[in-house]
């Protein structure tokens, strides 16, 4: 068992366990905190797949911004008092079966994939030479310029939308 496999095994098991915890916690705050831990592990995995920039983004954006936002909302709505009822909906077995079926189908598909598309020209060492941030920046601002601009517009729309929605209605 090479060092890499042990490294991956740790991360895989930890991420599975944490995601199970995130899903099953009665108290939403605990879920969010476990989610944070999950993000940290994901950042570690990204580093392992030498996507340093993404690891950073993952930590800053996901963990830092989105999870904080969730915490704010949970605190705002002081949800803790509703923990008495049963967490799951009445037809949870159906969704459990669906989820498991999904898993089975996805995994069984792997067996079907026989031919791998040919490798792209961005080999790992070429990225390390430039630094992953540089390469992503080059490609982002040349080939994917339009999606980038659209993404910015999308964010703008989200901001405006969030503000409008959360504003107090003036009747």
């Amino acid at each position, binding site marked *: 068992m090479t060092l890499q496999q042990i490294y991956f095994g740790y991360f895989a098991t930890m991420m599975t366990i944490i995601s199970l915890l995130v899903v099953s916690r009665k108290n939403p705050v605990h879920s969010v905190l476990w989610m944070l831990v999950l993000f940290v592990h994901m950042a570690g995995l990204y580093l392992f797949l030498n996507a340093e920039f993404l690891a950073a983004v993952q930590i800053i954006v996901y963990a830092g911004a989105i999870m904080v936002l969730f915490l704010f909302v949970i605190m705002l709505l002081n949800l803790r008092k509703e923990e008495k009822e049963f967490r799951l909906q009445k037809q949870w077995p159906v969704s459990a079966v669906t989820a498991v079926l999904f898993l089975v189908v996805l995994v069984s598909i792997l067996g*079907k994939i026989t031919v791998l598309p040919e490798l792209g020209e961005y080999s790992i060492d070429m990225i390390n030479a430039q630094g992953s941030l540089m390469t992503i920046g080059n490609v982002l601002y040349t080939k994917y310029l339009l999606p980038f601009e659209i993404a910015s517009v999308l964010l703008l729309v989200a901001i405006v939308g969030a503000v409008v929605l959360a504003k107090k209605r003036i009747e």
Partner: protein
Amino acid sequence: MLKYILIPLLPLLSFIINILFGRNYIKNRAHWIAVPAILGSFVLAVSACIEVLNGKVIDINVYSWIVSGSFNVSVGILIDQLTAVMLMVVTSIGSLIFIYSVGYMHGDKGYYRFFAYLSLFIFSMLTLVMANNFLIMYLGWEAVGLCSYFLIGFWFHKKSAGDAGKKAFIVNRFGDFGFGLGVILIFLTFGSLNYMEVFGAAGGIVGQTITLLGYKVDLITLICLLLFCGAMGKSAQFPFHVWLPDAMEGPTPVSALIHAATMVTAGVFMVARCNTLFSYSQTAMNTVAIVGGFTAIFAATIALVQNDIKRVIAYSTVSQLGYMFLALGVGAYSAGVFHLYTHAFFKALLFLGSGSVIHALHHAKQDDEQNMQVMGGLKKHMPITYWVFILATLSITGIPFLSGFFSKDEILWQTFQAGDLGKFLWFLGALAALLTAFYSWRLIYLTFHGEYRGDTECESRIHESPLVITIPLMLLAVGAVAAGWVGIPPVFLEHGDKIGYFLAPVLGHPEGHGTHAQEYFVIASSIFVAIAGWVIAYIMYIKNPGLPEKLFSAFRPVHKVLFNKYYIDEFYDKTIVQPVLKASDKIILAFDVNVIEGVVNGVPSLIGVFSKGLRKIQTGLLSNYAAVMAIGVLCVVGYMFFMR
């Protein structure tokens, strides 16, 4: 040609003028237009008859009416001997009745309307009589039915009058139903509707038969029976007689003109006109004779017990019409038409006489003025009407040397000669003559003899009708007496039967094969019968007035049946009228509403049921939708990777 067209057109013009301008301009000066019009057409009719007398037959096609493929009918006029007789009857009696109704209808609100409808009636009757093809006759036929509808229902505010008018029109429509089909059948067999062509080709189709509902039916008999069905409807013969007594709701001049002299005789005229067709089919002749004979005796029995003066005379009309059809049935067409001619005079006289009686009682404020039980002893108050009535009754009962005797005796004699069926029918006829004598004299004694049974102070106000009423009565009385002298049988005065010879070219002249002895026996028997009826009536109503009551109570059921006219009205009502109304009420409406509406509204409600089912899927729960999406993706992916 214009001269002949003017005969029917003058009354039409008077109708149009009266109906359009009557309400606000003419009001009760309508007779200034109507009477000259009818007199004008009377004069023209006389001139036409004189032309026909010296042998000229007028047959003109005015313009082609309907042209559709092979079907070609034109409006045309035919004036031959038969039409001449009818023209004389219609226009002469029409004029007298017009003058009479000037007095009778004086002061009535619908005065102009009355004269308008009367003129329209004269126009339609003349069209019917002067037609030269079956379709124009059909036109006249229906138009006459229309006018009788107007005139019977003249006092329309009375519900009974309205109903009677409607009943008359619908029963006539039953007759016209048969007549219309007959006309169509005639065209289909002969290819034309013109009289001359049809009668000319009649011989050719004697043997032909036609399959109808699987049976072989003789064509000529079928045509004659259909035509006769129309005649029965119009002339109120047995199955279709129900409308005539109710038609008495109309004013009396109407009853006189339409339901005595002219319209009801249209059926007789039609059968006489188609004598060539009828003579080819023995079965049709027999049916006509039997129906005629039966109706004569049947109507006479009902007339025995009626109390309404006009209904008695109405039933006597039905009975006399039965006589005419009897004559036609045995082939004595000229005798039938001769009886029609004389009957028109004395029956119109009877009606107008009773009209003047009712008029007088009406002025005397006597309620239920048509009921004979209320009258009595009017001899002192209304001498002229009394004597005129006497003359008319003498004539109708068949007292020798009066018009009724000659025409009725001629019929009985001709029936007698027509084989053993003829003998039986002759016996029926004689019996009917006995009953006729009885009820006619009963009417005289009840109204004019004995004491006044109405309330006494009214009696003082009863007085003779004004001259404008009595003059036409007297003229008609002359007609009632003298009209018969035209057809004195050869046995009294050789070649005396002038009308028979006059009508011969159209109707043919049956050679009598009975011996003189038989003829004398028939004449003697009819005289005996007339006097016997008179004597019985005299005993029952003058000698001991109590007798009728005792007799009626003795035969209580018989009296009830006769009084209610054999319950035929109720029978028709139950078998035809009610089922139609009930069918339309319940079955048809229910069918229409439930079945069709059910289907029509059922489809959308069915769709509604489906949609209600589908709505359950929209639960509103977010996770359900997400689950459905997930399953959807699952299926697609599964199919893509595993099924293909």
